[in-house]
Structures are given as C-alpha cells and as structure tokens.
C-alpha cells in the first residue's frame, strides 16, 4: 500500500518537474521572441514574386520558341522542363543558384530550377564520398521527400478520381 503510495508520489513529483520545465521553456521562448529579428516579410514576398516571375518568364520564352518551331503543346512543355532543369543544374554547378535563392527565396525554390538545385547541390557536395555512397546515395536527400510525398499525393488523387469519377 505504502509502496504504491510512494510510486504515485514519485510519478506526481516527476510530472510536476516536467510541467515546471515545460513552463520555464515557454517563458524563455517569450524572451527569445522579444530579441529575435523579424523576417522581412514584405521585402521577401516582393523579391519572391520578382525572381519567381522572371524564372517563369524565361520558361515562357522557351515555350513560345518551341511552339513557334512547330512542336505540339505537350512536347513543347516537356522540352521547356528539360531546358529549365538543365539551367538550374548549370547555375548550381557555377555556384550562382544559391545566391539567387538567397534573394528570391521561395520564388527560386518552388520552380523546377529549384528542384534541379536540390539534386545537384548534394551530388556536388558528396562527390568526395565516392560515386556510390556519395553522389548516388546523397543525391536525393533533399529531393527524395518531395518525390515520395509527390507520388503519394498523386496516388491518393488517382484513387479518389477512380472511386468518385
């Protein structure tokens, strides 16, 4: 009887300690928040719009050129994607793309050039670890999750369409 009493008391103490610690962490977060510089949301948003828009405008130019050269719409789109992935990879290799993202943020991460950057950057970085454990294994460390959840989402949407439609 007394043993279970002790155990309950111990558990209670432990819980009290934990909640005290959580409370202190919360209080400290308030102090941290007070001194942390705010991200420049307006400037970042405008720059994302400008940089993202510029990348898309480039893609549109290529698309028009391909359509003008006589490619059908679907082929023109595929060709544009290839060109943009190539440009993203090239600019990453030249050490330029990370500077574009620094200014443009999501405007440069979301387009397919950013996807190319996320594959080429680790591939370059981990070349020292060899072509199998380095380039091969690390290439998709950042793009991998995008692919996994992209596929998963497309499967779910496909199933929904199959069931509902």
């Amino acid at each position, binding site marked *: 009887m007394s043993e279970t009493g002790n155990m309950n008391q111990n558990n209670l103490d432990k819980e009290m300690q934990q909640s005290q610690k*959580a409370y202190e*962490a919360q209080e*400290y977060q308030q102090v*941290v928040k007070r001194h942390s510089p705010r991200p420049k949301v307006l400037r970042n948003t405008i720059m994302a719009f400008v940089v993202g828009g510029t990348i898309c405008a480039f893609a549109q130019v290529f698309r028009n050129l391909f359509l003008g050269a006589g490619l059908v719409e679907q082929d023109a789109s595929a060709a544009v994607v290839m060109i943009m992935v190539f440009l993203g990879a090239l600019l990453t290799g030249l050490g330029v793309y990370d500077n574009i993202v620094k200014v443009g943020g999501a405007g440069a991460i979301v387009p397919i050039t950013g996807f190319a950057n996320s594959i080429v*950057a680790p591939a370059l970085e981990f070349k020292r670890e060899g072509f199998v454990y380095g380039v091969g294994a690390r290439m998709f460390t950042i793009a991998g999750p995008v692919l996994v959840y992209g596929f998963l989402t497309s499967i779910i949407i496909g199933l929904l369409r199959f069931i509902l439609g």
Partner: protein
Amino acid sequence: MSNTKKIGKQTIRFDNPPVIVETASIVGPKEGKGPLGETFDRVVDNMYFGENSFEKAERKFIEEAIKLVVEKQKIQASDIDFLLAGDLLNQMISANFAASTLGIPFFGLYGACSTMMEGIILGSMLIDGGYASKVIAGTSSHYCSAERQYRFPVEQGVQRPMTAQWTVTGAAAFLLSAEAQGVNVSHATVGKVVDAGVKDPHDMGAAMAPAAVDTIITHLQDTGRDVGYYDLIVTGDLGAVGRAIAADLGNQQGYDFSQLEDCGVLIFDSSQDTHAGGSGCACSAVVTAGHFMQQLRAGKYKRILIVGTGALLSVTSSQQGESIPAIAHGVVLENSKNPE
C-alpha cells in the same frame, strides 16, 4: 585532503596561474576581410587550403595553427607534454588526424564551440597540478564542413533565418606554460549543461544564452566579484541575438550585462551578411588568440573574463525532436606584468 584550489560551487583558482606564452591563429578569407582581419597570424584565401575536401582543409587549419605556435616559440613539438584539442566534426576527425601527424600525447575534447576554453581550463589544471610544464590547447571549425554535417550542402539554395550564425573558418592554438610571466589564466569556472528547451537549430544564440548567463553569474558569486571588476566580460559565440537575450536574462537576475562583448559579433561586420554573427569552435578561439591576447599584452585590458559557449547540437537528436542543450566555460585572463 585540502581543497584550496576550488572556490565556491564551480570555480577554480590556480595557485600558480599558468601563462599563455604564445598563441597562433589562422583563418579563412571571410574572417580575414572582417574587422579583426589584421589581428590573425595568417589568412588563407582558399576554403580548400590546397586540399581536396573541406574536412582535410579543416584538419590542415588546426595542424598548421599548432605547428605555428610551436615555431613562434622556437621549440619542438616533442617539448610539448600534452595536446588538448577538439572540433565540431563527428568523432572530432580534425583534431584526431592532426594529432596523428604531430605525435604529441593527446586528449580529444568535445565542448562544441566552448572547446577552446575547455582546453585552456584543462591545460591550466595539468600545469598547475604539476602534471605538465608545456601544454597546447587548440581547436578548429570550417564553414563548409560544418554546413554539410549540420545543415545543407554549400550550393543548396536556402534562405537563412535572421537568427542564423556563420561558422567561422579557422583554427587557433594556445601554448600554456608553467614558467614565464605574462598573460595568465588565474581562474576558471566550469559550466554546467543547461537546457532551456530551444529546438531551433538555426537559433544557437538562444540555446546558449542561458548557459552563458549561468556560468557568468556563478563565477561572480564564487569569486565574490562584481561585473565591474573585469575590464571586459566576453562571450564566445552568442551572436547579436544571443547577446541581447543574455543581457535580458542578466537583468532579470539583477546583473548589468549591457556591456557584454561577444566574439561572434566582433569577428564579422554587418556588411558581411552573416545575419546574427559568427559561431563555431574557431570563433572564440581566433578572436581570443588574436584580438584579446594583443589587447591584454598591450595593457589595454588588464583582466578579462572570457566565457566560451557551446551549443551541444546533434543532427540525430535534433531531428528526433529533442532540444539543444548548451554549456559555457569561463576563463579569467590577467596580465601579471602590469601590477595594479
């Protein structure tokens, strides 16, 4: 057994304060262009330092710094009793590999960015305890090797938050000796690990500030001194955000930390786009070895308290949702050549 060397809860008072007879500092290009660029012994203009990987470059930084401190003192590596060194990379590969070529009896240390002060404290204990007459303490960090281990590949496009800090590329070595007069290590306060529950790996200043404040206040209580007793109290790499938090925390406990300096704030200027400032093992190491040692030798400062701050961050525990514990070790440097 008498225990006169320890005073208060966490502080050591050295009977015969070991002297820092020589220091060496080598930094990368960005640090060389910073406001303290002139104070370093050597600025390397290439991040690879003539090697083919960033890890090998970092190893060369620490190896060269240790060789340089030996050279400057015109002695041999074989005259050194112990080498105490560590770095940020997993299993401390920079220090271990450097030690393998130097052939000095070696203790590997990990205190994250507080490693330099940890090394100076332990080295001073070895000397004052009579176990050694010459000890080298050293550390290194490298922006690119740290980024690839802790965060993203260097060419990966990311927008760093304003609280983020820039890992200092460089290495420093301190030669401690029992003999000469000069700038000595009179007291040391060994820090406790403090976990304030910060989980953001891009906000190290916030993770470390409570540890720094804890160590400074404990030091002042243990020694019975006040803030004004020191010409300067310096923290390792809290950065601009962490320093502001530390001043706030100190204020809450009745201490005026508004004059606190921070090596991470000093090493870069605002035009260098590092956001909150510098960080990394080399941050407090090269700023102390260069700037502060020069100021102490010149007599501009007589007595300073340097608190090395380390965020004990691990990618594994951080990804598993754990908070980032931190530690801070304090060292009192005094110039014994200029008596009061």
